[in-house]
């Protein structure tokens, strides 16, 4: 048992550092460091820089243009990315639909879609959830009816993250409702510019537009956009959900946020409460740090199991639950550090390029909206209750 890096791994780390120092667009890093939300162009610029370097497909096999990195290399990459204030890699293309296409798609689909996903030339979004199919995803009703060379799609998806940025949406649709509900589901790729697709914003608690409703009215989708076999979509989606859950843990970004908080407390700017003297607060901080260390090692165990050829199994549910609980604990600590200036709602202050007079410490007013926004993390990607059901069933055997 050891986690020492080899000479090669240390050299790799240096290369990654160099990349983030020299090749990540500085404007993007500044936004992330200031707590601003990067916009569409920022994400694309960052992901295209990764692509230029050959690093876009972090988890992809080499034959599809991926890095083929070892578990240690991925660990190093994610840590350095977070430490360099890189934005998260938008998962819908690179971590979700890409792997589904290279695993279950045909050669034509691979040739058609994978290069644009890898190069972030096309923005994808995820069309799974529906108003009445959330936790019970298999209860979805959006219908795709075969009509010659097309499917005619009718129905609606909801909570579609960044659907307003997207060129394409990958959907679970119902192609059959005669048998078990899981069996009549298919995996369909839909061009968002198709006639009959409309996107409507949903505003969240923090006042932002991040999620959407997507409506389909007699949308004609060519049958060649069906991935794999008709009726097998549920199986493909389950594989993908497991990937999504590993990604969701966010260990490296949480380490970064904790380190930033400690730096802030070590030298608090004017207007930040002197929390280092508050043993109650410090105990919470230390406990969060302990949880994070445990989770980091749990993640390392999962990663090394995956590297030896095992698929991420039910233990990825631990990563999702604990990872999101830690993210939310960090939100609470940061909210406390904002003190009285947690109260003003001044969104313009944490937009890029803000030059006016700051209300309170610059970061402070963005903490409550962030805390509100991040309540989502225990809800999306399968709620934490559903994850515990999975553990109870698949691990404990109930």
């Amino acid at each position: 048992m050891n986690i020492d890096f080899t000479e090669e791994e240390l050299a790799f780390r240096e290369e990654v550092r160099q990349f983030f120092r020299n090749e990540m667009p500085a404007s993007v890093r500044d936004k992330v460091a200031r707590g601003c939300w990067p916009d569409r162009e920022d994400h694309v610029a960052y992901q295209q820089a990764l692509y230029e370097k050959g690093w876009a497909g972090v988890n992809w096999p080499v034959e599809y243009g991926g890095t083929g990195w070892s578990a240690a290399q991925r660990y190093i990459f994610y840590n350095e990315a977070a430490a360099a204030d890189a934005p998260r890699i938008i998962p819908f293309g690179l971590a979700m639909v890409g792997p589904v296409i290279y695993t279950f798609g045909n050669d034509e689909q691979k040739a058609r879609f994978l290069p644009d996903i890898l190069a972030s030339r096309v923005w994808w979004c995820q069309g799974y959830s529906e108003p009445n199919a959330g936790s019970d995803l298999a209860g979805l009703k959006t219908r795709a009816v075969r009509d010659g060379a097309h499917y005619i799609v009718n129905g609606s998806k909801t909570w579609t993250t960044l659907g307003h940025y997207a060129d394409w949406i990958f959907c679970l649709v119902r192609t059959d409702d005669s048998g078990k509900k899981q069996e009549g589901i298919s995996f369909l790729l839909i061009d968002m510019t198709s006639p009959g697709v409309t996107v409507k914003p949903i505003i969240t608690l923090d006042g932002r537009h991040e999620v959407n409703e997507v409506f389909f009215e007699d949308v004609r989708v060519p049958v060649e956009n069906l991935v794999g076999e008709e009726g097998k979509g549920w199986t493909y989606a389950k594989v993908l959900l497991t990937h999504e859950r590993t990604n969701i843990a966010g260990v490296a970004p949480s380490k970064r946020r904790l380190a930033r908080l400690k730096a802030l407390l070590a030298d608090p700017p004017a207007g930040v409460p002197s929390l280092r003297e508050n043993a109650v607060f410090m105990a919470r901080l230390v406990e969060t740090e302990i949880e994070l260390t445990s989770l980091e090692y749990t993640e390392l165990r999962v990663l090394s199991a995956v590297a030896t050829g095992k698929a991420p199994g039910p233990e990825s549910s631990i990563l999702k639950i604990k990872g999101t609980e830690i993210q939310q604990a960090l939100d609470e600590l940061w909210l406390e550090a904002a003190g009285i200036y947690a109260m003003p709602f001044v969104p313009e202050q944490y937009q890029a390029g803000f030059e006016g007079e700051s209300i309170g410490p610059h970061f402070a007013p963005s903490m409550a909206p962030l805390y509100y926004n991040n309540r989502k993390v225990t809800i999306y990607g399968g709620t934490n209750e559903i994850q515990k059901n999975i553990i109870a069933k698949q691990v404990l055997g109930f």
Partner: protein
Amino acid sequence: MDFSLNDIQQMLQDSASRFVRNDYGFASRRAIVESAAGYSAAHWQTYAELGWLALPFPEEVGGMGGSLSDLMVLQTELGRGLIVEPYLATVVMAGNLINRHAAAGQKQALLEALISGEQLFSFAGFEAAAQHDIRLISTTAGADGDGYRLNGHKAVVIGAGLGGKLVVVARTGGRPGDAGGLSLFLLDEDAEGVSLQGYTTNDGLRAADVRLSDVLVGPEALLGDAGTAAPAINAMLNDAIVALSAEAVGVMETLLSRTVEFCKVRKQFGVPIGSFQVLQHRMADMFMECEQARSMLYYATIAVAGGCDADVAASRLKVRIGKAARLVGQQAIQLHGGMGVTDELDVGHYFKRLTMINTQLGSRDAHLHRLVQLQSVA
């Protein structure tokens, strides 16, 4: 021993709950929050007519002579409506302080104007470096001729920017850390040297940062005696914690009932999600937190009103409310799933208010720290 409401309290509760039900629906609240004024002047007049603005003040100045328990009952109902009018700022904080500390001659006119609904007030006490600890404030009021010259920066003054008057805490003596030397001044928001940076808070209230630069005032601007305001401020803050906590109880009980209703009608896997035992237990936890918070509210109301260990009681209350608010607020959102994080649903707005209540008047961590320190010397 009797925890039931008396006739006056029953009347208050009925009239407030009727008002919230009939006149303060979620859509109309949203319209008020988004309006240029940021509060409803018409509702404020209604509050005057219903006697709410007079409630805690003595009869000789036109008040109703109500008790802290009466105020608690009213605030709980206002919490259920997520009222954004500056009741806490004007009546519970600034008015309370005027009543406690202003000279007899000043009091009458100011409180009459408050009670009639003509005049709004806000409490400009807290500062960035001091946070909610009033002893640490550094705003100064140096003698200047027969008046004073004020300099300083007041942080997040709730209710400022609505055209009311500011009750400012400033030092005529002592230095940050001293309880002595604190004085109260009454300023107009548009007085020379006063500048306001106004904004809405995360939970829909209006507030402002207030900068005082060489604000020259005559001796009449001083409320009560110079240098002796600390005990009055402290007593006012204890009352305010009780009132704010009462509001929190109203917010939490509403969140609990919304969540229970939702879990009865929302179906997944072909059954109401409320049929899942893990969610039933979660709501049982929320229920227990609401009840424990209410019990603590009664304890602290009695202790603060009776003046026995009022500081400790108020801090204990704020800690307990903060703990309950976290569980009840977070689980209400969690059990609503995606719907919980939308701006569209009222649940999220109760959650936002509840979150800000923890910050307002000092957080759970801050009060817990204070209590720990008191323990270690006791």
